[in-house]
């Protein structure tokens, strides 16, 4: 009946993510500790996902106060809440007809969507943004899946493909496969800080010739897991490339607020596109994704994300709308998180000082962690890590000794997975293995989320050093 034979082949094709195994092992270890098992560590440090609150970073007070007041409007009478918190909550409640238990318009609460357009416009130096081009959903991946689904061209002779980076975060790979889309890998240049090279894009596109039908290019800027932040010139190069090669541009910009490199600056694809003027600005089809899960808010659990569509055929927009309407609407918690992200307290408002302080503290933590973690890891023999200019992760390369690789093969595990399992078992540190990220063959990496409390970073670096030294000695 529902034996493995009779399952959607797209689902069967989804690669088993090794991280899942590690997560289960971590649960087991936590359970063992709960039952009194003695280990060299009291708790597991989990930095395998981009999950800032899990890493000890705190939510923004303003966001949570507004959310609480919307959830339980009796709080609007509370003296504990500032006037601007109450105003914001009241405004949101009015927009949704009095209760956040209601459904909203498909694309999102109109006032929130309007707020997004103003945010985008401000960010992009005044470039206009139209509300009809915005769709909010329960997470940016949800938006991405919907757009991918529309892009699948089953009428073409060859299967639909999307150029995607190597390395790339596994959720994107999952999304592609689930929609039956083939990834065409283009390699980021590790030696040059994970730079995106034009020639490599050309090569990748060429490799697809006669094999599959590439319809889009997916870029992540700032990167995940790679910590690159693209320069304006690099973005222009990409735009020219998609224009010439007729590709839809999928720009995942969820880490736009996580820039930690001193000389780095986030510039949006949209802004560069518009500044390049015609023919690019009125023809390149662009989907740009943002999320409340990342940045200084880190509200992953509230599930809020949006997509801005640029230069998309109006007739297709109709169908995109229809697809989003099947989900009815994004969760209200997500929509509110997006609103508070795009429309934070202003300098003349009472919540502003605390908001500013909290935000800056997290930013300082990110900058500090990026620097400290890279330094520490690069001191370990066998590790080399590119600088992290943006994003929430470091992705150091580990040169595993031959004996370790052999042991891994004997155990039937990818070598970096082998390393990660031992790391988890021996020092209680949960990171994710490079094999989940489509890395260059013969190279091994681990990904560590650095958007964590400084104390947690110190502890994880300490454990990593102890383990790594021992591991390298054992397998040298």
């Amino acid at each position, binding site marked *: 009946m529902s034996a493995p034979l009779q399952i959607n082949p797209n689902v069967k094709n989804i690669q*088993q993510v090794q991280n899942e195994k590690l997560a289960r092992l971590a649960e087991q270890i936590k359970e063992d500790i709960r039952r009194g098992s003695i280990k060299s560590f009291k708790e597991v440090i989990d930095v395998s996902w981009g999950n800032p609150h899990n890493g000890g970073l705190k939510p923004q007070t303003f966001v949570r106060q507004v959310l609480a007041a919307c959830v*339980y409007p009796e709080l609007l009478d509370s003296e504990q809440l500032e006037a601007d918190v109450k105003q914001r909550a009241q405004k949101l409640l009015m927009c949704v007809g009095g209760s956040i238990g209601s459904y909203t318009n498909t694309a999102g609460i109109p006032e929130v969507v309007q707020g997004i357009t103003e945010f985008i416009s401000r960010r992009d130096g005044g470039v206009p943004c139209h509300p009809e081009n915005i769709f909010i959903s329960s997470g940016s991946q949800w938006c991405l899946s919907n757009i991918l*689904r529309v892009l699948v061209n089953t009428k073409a002779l060859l299967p639909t493909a999307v150029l995607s980076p190597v390395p790339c975060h596994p*959720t994107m790979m999952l999304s592609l496969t689930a929609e039956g889309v083939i990834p065409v890998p283009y390699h980021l240049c590790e030696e040059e800080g994970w730079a995106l090279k034009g020639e490599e894009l050309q090569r990748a596109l060429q490799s697809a010739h006669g094999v599959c039908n590439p319809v889009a290019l997916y870029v992540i800027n700032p990167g995940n897991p790679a910590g690159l932040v693209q320069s304006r010139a690099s973005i222009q190069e990409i735009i020219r490339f998609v224009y010439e090669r007729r590709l839809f541009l999928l720009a995942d910009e969820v880490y736009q607020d996580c820039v930690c490199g001193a000389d780095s600056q986030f510039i949006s694809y949209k802004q560069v596109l518009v500044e390049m003027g015609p023919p690019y600005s009125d023809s390149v089809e662009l989907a740009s994704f943002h999320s409340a899960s990342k940045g200084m808010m*880190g509200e*992953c659990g509230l*599930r809020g994300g949006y997509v801005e569509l640029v230069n998309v055929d*109006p*007739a297709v927009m109709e169908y995109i709308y229809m697809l989003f309407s099947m989900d009815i609407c994004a969760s209200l918690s997500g929509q509110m998180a997006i609103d508070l992200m795009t429309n934070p307290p202003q300098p003349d408002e009472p919540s502003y000082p605390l908001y500013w302080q909290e935000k800056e503290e997290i930013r300082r933590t990110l900058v500090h962690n990026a620097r400290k973690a890279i330094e520490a890891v690069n001191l370990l023999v066998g590790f080399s890590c590119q600088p992290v200019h943006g994003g929430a992760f470091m992705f150091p390369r580990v040169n595993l000794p031959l004996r370790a690789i052999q042991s891994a093969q004997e155990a039937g595990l990818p070598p970096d997975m082998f390393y990660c399992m031992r790391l988890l078992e021996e020092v209680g540190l949960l990171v994710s293995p490079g094999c989940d990220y489509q890395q260059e063959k013969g190279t091994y990496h681990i990904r560590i989320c650095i958007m964590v409390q400084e104390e947690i970073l110190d502890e994880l670096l300490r454990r990593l050093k102890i383990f790594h030294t021992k591991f390298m000695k054992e397998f040298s």
Partner: protein
Amino acid sequence: QSKRKWFCVILARPYKSSQSGAAAGGGGSTWCGSVRGETKMSQQAANGDRCRAKVLTVETMNPNVKRVEYAVRGPIVQRAVQLEKELKQGAKKPFTEVIKANIGDAHAMGQKPITFFRQVLALCAYPALLEEEKFPEDAKQRARRILAACGGHSIGAYSASQGIECIRQDVSRYIEKRDGGIPSNPDNIYLSTGASDAIVTMLKLLVCGEGRQRTGVMISIPQYPLYSAALADLAAVQINYYLDEDKSWSLDVAELRRSLNAAREHCNPRVLCIINPGNPTGQVQSRQCIEDVIRFAKEERLFLMADEVYQDNVYAEGCKFHSFKKVLFEMGPEYSSTVEMASFHSTSKCFMGECGFRGGYMEVINMDPAVKAQLIKLVSVRLCPPVPGQALMDLVVNPPQPDEPSYTTFVKEKTAVLAALAEKASITEQAFNTMPGFTCNPVQGAMYTFPRISIPQKAIDKAKELGQVPDMFYCMKLLEEEGICLVPGSGFGQRDGTFHFRMTILPPTEKLKIVLQRIKDFHLRFTQEFS
């Protein structure tokens, strides 16, 4: 098809330079005339300019997505939103507000949230409130427990894709209690972003095969159009089985058999979907019927999908909600160990009405472990369901107990909500059954009425002229003249030659009575106009 027109009127152009923008705007109503399907011109052709062809056009896009329709959010709702906008801008209309009786959104119609739930959720959102005396101890205790299960003690952390473990455990306990002790394994519980998410995930998982081996999915007519939309999107074969309008929309196994046998000619039927209590029909299936369906599913080796989101919404005397799982297990091991099933629940309906939280779950029964391994991969794509929705589901399955401080208020509120719904169900049913031109089956449960309307031949002809389905024509006119938004029966499926609409029973009682009166008046006028 003119029902598409409204999309285009409302949909403004995406950002583009003025040369192409003007053409798109000016051509708004003309090129929309043939928007659907292959006859649509590409933007380039419409503009008549020489800008390059787009990558993503109606020709190159996913053909399955083009077949997706979702009536509950379809053209009539678009028009309703437009009318609301116009009213806001001061336009004069024969009505002062648009009453959106199209969607099962209780809070939008004034239903109050359950105090206890909102208290706990507020505490979870802003844990500093745990210090405040105004919150009862049982609310605080639950908030603390939920927060302890969250990464970093924050509802802003991702949870496991399947959902927070202790919540899944609570869901299992709830199911066990509901089903008289039949065991439920938390590993079989998948929390989701509303029930819709879980339903689509299951269909995504199961639909496969090519040509005549393409998966066929049985669904009732009438049905909740998420199913037809999802099946179109997946290019699955939709197999319709008709509920019997003359017998209060009951399900007859003979009809299941007829439809299945016909379907075997052209597809591979593997799934049977049933909504109980029903949407839009409101029928609550009898225990016997549920047994018959289970027996049928076993005989024909079908995966059963039981949509039970309205399980607390049962009003009619003599009607009772029987969970598919309970009946399955009471039928003995021959069935309970073989029939594969998924049952769905949600925080959007029942007495909670918390649609905006997007909370839901499914329980899978007798699923092959290898298939479960595939399922977990699929749910990982969405990372995790909204944590506030997960927390809410926890409260729904773990409400105040008799010895707890919030119990009295909780029970009072819950009872009041369900009583109000029952009253409104009764008022609505009675009203329609006394109106000439309407027949309405008993609203045994759920949140809707689905009355059958008689439409004069002249009106049917006029509708045809305009390229509209007759009940859409009727509902559009009702919207324009009375500001009442309903969903035409054609959006849900109905027997040929019959016409219906779905109206929610959710507006406040006084408003509901007014709405019913106005529908009655409209129908009289309509019938006279087209006599």
